[in-house]
């Protein structure tokens, strides 16, 4: 088509590289490459299937929670209850699970997460316009309290085949954690083709403008939370299969890690900026980072210290292009 030719005329080689350079996820991708190289050096048999599988057994839930967190942050909100939702899910399912009702319990738990994390937060933040940070902090406390009530000490029952399944290869080639990750990312790709996706960016970028364009802002804010809760639910299943118990502490590290991952991945806390691919890079960075610290044989006394330093370093490297951009703006 004639108009089409004119539109895509700018797609020359130079603008292609410029586009990549200007992409919000580019810096985090660079950091990821650096960290992977470091990891390859330190971790033996890095590319063997079993090592990849063990790695992704812990990475997959983090990546999924980070996707959830990113969607919510892009819509201009924040989810402090992500970690507690995971704990809530594992405690609930492990408490009720027997050998016979696995699917039913998982579906019920999944629904509970979507209602508790998604609709409840979304209703209060979108419809009632409550402040997101404090609202989700409160729901976090409620869900954590509930999880502690039904399972004060770690326990419950998870059938053997469930955690065996997570630690195996699908059709003998594809590690199951990666399969789950692919399913999650596929869901995201599907969502990113809908109008809802663009509305989420619009609402996060300029709420008034979105309203003026005839977008139902409160509904979009709510649906951002609901969609995010789907990913949290999937991550919950992964954690359940990974830890094979229900514990109210199991989800808590994922909250801060997902926030860190999203921000290293170029998602702006002001909303409307950044994309989920960057956030996935960010989550992988955080994941590999734990590996590096472990395989570099850092004494356990200094591990947390080292982790903090490396996160700061990763964040600063990821922020360098932004620093330049702001200075070059005029």
């Amino acid at each position, binding site marked *: *088509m004639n*108009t*089409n030719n*004119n*539109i895509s005329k*700018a797609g020359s080689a130079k603008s292609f590289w410029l586009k990549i350079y200007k992409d919000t996820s580019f810096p985090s991708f660079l950091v990821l490459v650096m960290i992977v190289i470091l990891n390859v050096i330190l971790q033996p048999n890095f590319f063997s299937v079993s090592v990849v599988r063990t790695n992704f057994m812990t990475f997959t839930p983090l990546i999924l929670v980070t996707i959830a967190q990113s969607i919510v942050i892009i819509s201009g909100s924040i989810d402090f209850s992500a970690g507690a939702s995971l704990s809530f899910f594992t405690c609930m399912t492990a408490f009720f699970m027997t050998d016979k009702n696995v699917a039913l319990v998982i579906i019920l738990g999944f629904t509970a997460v979507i209602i508790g994390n998604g609709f409840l937060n979304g209703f209060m933040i979108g419809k009632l316009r409550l402040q997101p940070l404090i609202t989700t902090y409160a729901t976090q406390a409620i869900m954590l309290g509930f999880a502690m009530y039904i399972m004060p000490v770690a326990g419950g029952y998870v059938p053997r085949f469930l955690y065996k399944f997570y630690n195996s290869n699908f059709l003998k080639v594809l590690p199951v954690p990666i399969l789950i990750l692919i399913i999650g990312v596929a869901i995201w790709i599907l969502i990113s*083709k*809908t*109008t*809802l996706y*663009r509305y989420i*960016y*619009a609402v996060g*970028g*300029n709420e*008034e*403008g*979105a*309203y*003026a*364009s*005839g*977008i*139902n802002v409160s509904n979009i804010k709510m649906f951002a939370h609901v969609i995010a809760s789907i990913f949290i639910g999937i991550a919950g299943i992964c954690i359940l299969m990974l830890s094979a118990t229900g514990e109210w502490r199991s989800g808590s590290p994922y909250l801060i890690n997902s926030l860190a991952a999203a921000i290293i991945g170029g998602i702006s806390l002001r909303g*409307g*900026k950044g994309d989920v691919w960057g956030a996935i890079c960010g989550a992988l960075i955080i994941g590999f980072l734990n590996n590096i610290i472990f395989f570099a044989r850092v004494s356990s006394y200094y591990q947390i210290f080292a982790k903090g330093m490396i996160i700061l370093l990763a964040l600063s490297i990821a922020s360098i292009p932004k620093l330049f951009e702001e*200075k*070059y703006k*005029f």
Partner: protein
Amino acid sequence: MKSFEAVNVKKRFDGVIALKGVDFKFEGPKICGLVGANGSGKTTFAKICCGLVRRDEGEFFIDGNQVDINSPIDAKKYGIVLAHQNLSLIPDMSVWENIDLGHEERRGRIFFNNKKARETAFKFLDDLFHREISIDTKIIDLSPGCKQMVEIAKALSQNSKMLILDEPTAALEYSHVERLFKKIHELKDNGISIIFISHRLWEIIRICDMVFAFRNGEEAGIVDFSKQTRDENLIVPLVTGTKGYEINNTKSCQKDFKDAENILELKDISFKNKLKNINFEVKKGEILGIGGLQGQGQEYLAMLIAGAVPLYSGKILLENKEVRLKQPIDAIKKGIYLVPGEKTTDGLFMDQKIFNNVVFPRFSLRKDKFFLRFSKLFKITDNIIGKTSLVPAKRDIIVSNLSGGNQQKVVFGRWLQFFPKILILNDPAKGVDIQARNDLYRIVKELSEQGTTVILYATSNEELISNCDRILIMFEGQIVEEIQHEDICHEKIVASSLRVGGEVEHKQ
């Protein structure tokens, strides 16, 4: 739309009455002009019509049927679309996504159709503005004029029955205005009514079928051009409320500054491809105009002198001493003040009181002791409010509740508390009514008599002609012409802006 009627529309914001009860009625597809001073309620009325602001009282009738408009979604249902002044674009989205937003081209019910959306966006932009903006640019990288173009294209691309254009021409240049007018006539022929809001009376007179004048939140009168002649003098008294009214169009008594001392000199200033080898000097007390077509680097030049463009090459001499301006505070400390082009984002703290907006610059300049003496600061603020004749004259009003002209007065007024050596005005009269504009330029002239140098960039040539002692014309980042005071006239400015008769150093 056969008829549209609004009856007794009322609105008040925080105790400030914006609309006292407006009646608005027209029949048949028509182009209706809407004029009024800043703060007369034009924009509020437009926003109420499209559901963006909820009315306190009032009823709407479309084709005789009563309709209830409470949100933009309702308005969309009835086909009422507003092209906003500076509101509805999402900064981090590309041009085509913004044009598409809210009425997406879809494939099925939920998936969107990017290819078609891009084509539509391209079509509408191309129609009006001939490929001056790439549809893949992000809004945040566009100049105010281009944003306005996108805003208009966005409104046009929707299937509307009534289109409200809120000061569409304020940031547009002449050739674009012409094309917009042509498009408006086309729309009218297709049965779409248009409400056209503008401060420029000649535009209203040219294209409108009838004119509604607003004053202080009321309808002050209607001029129907099918019955009355197209004459400015019929409209002006309705807007100002007084019979006699003089347009400040006389040439100022331009002075000769050949012997005055240099205050600012720019030598070989370049910045990326935006500014190329800028050389000029300004004398003390001079009013220097910068003209030319829109987006030829004038805004960058203004920003550069104000210290907001750190990475320039070349030299800036202030009072014959070289200075390096790395950030705005460097310029402010030296007495160079900027009134930015986009007041809402670059000039004001919109959610703060007038008082706070006025005193903030004092803190960065460390004019006060650690503990503030509020009585003194209140006095300074009141003084500025008086000088600029701000309405309402209360220092506690939140700035976002003020009208555009009064907001500009706050931006402008806060520099009056210091003695500006150089004042840079970036299109100060954009979206400002005649009265406020005259107030502003009156103060500018007073300042220049006291020895302030003023650098004025304005999109309207009339403002340059009536105020400047000397005008520089820019084209593609270069100064192509210097017009001395005896030669200043409209034809000369237009000719040199368009590079008529001059050799065009343009490679395409």
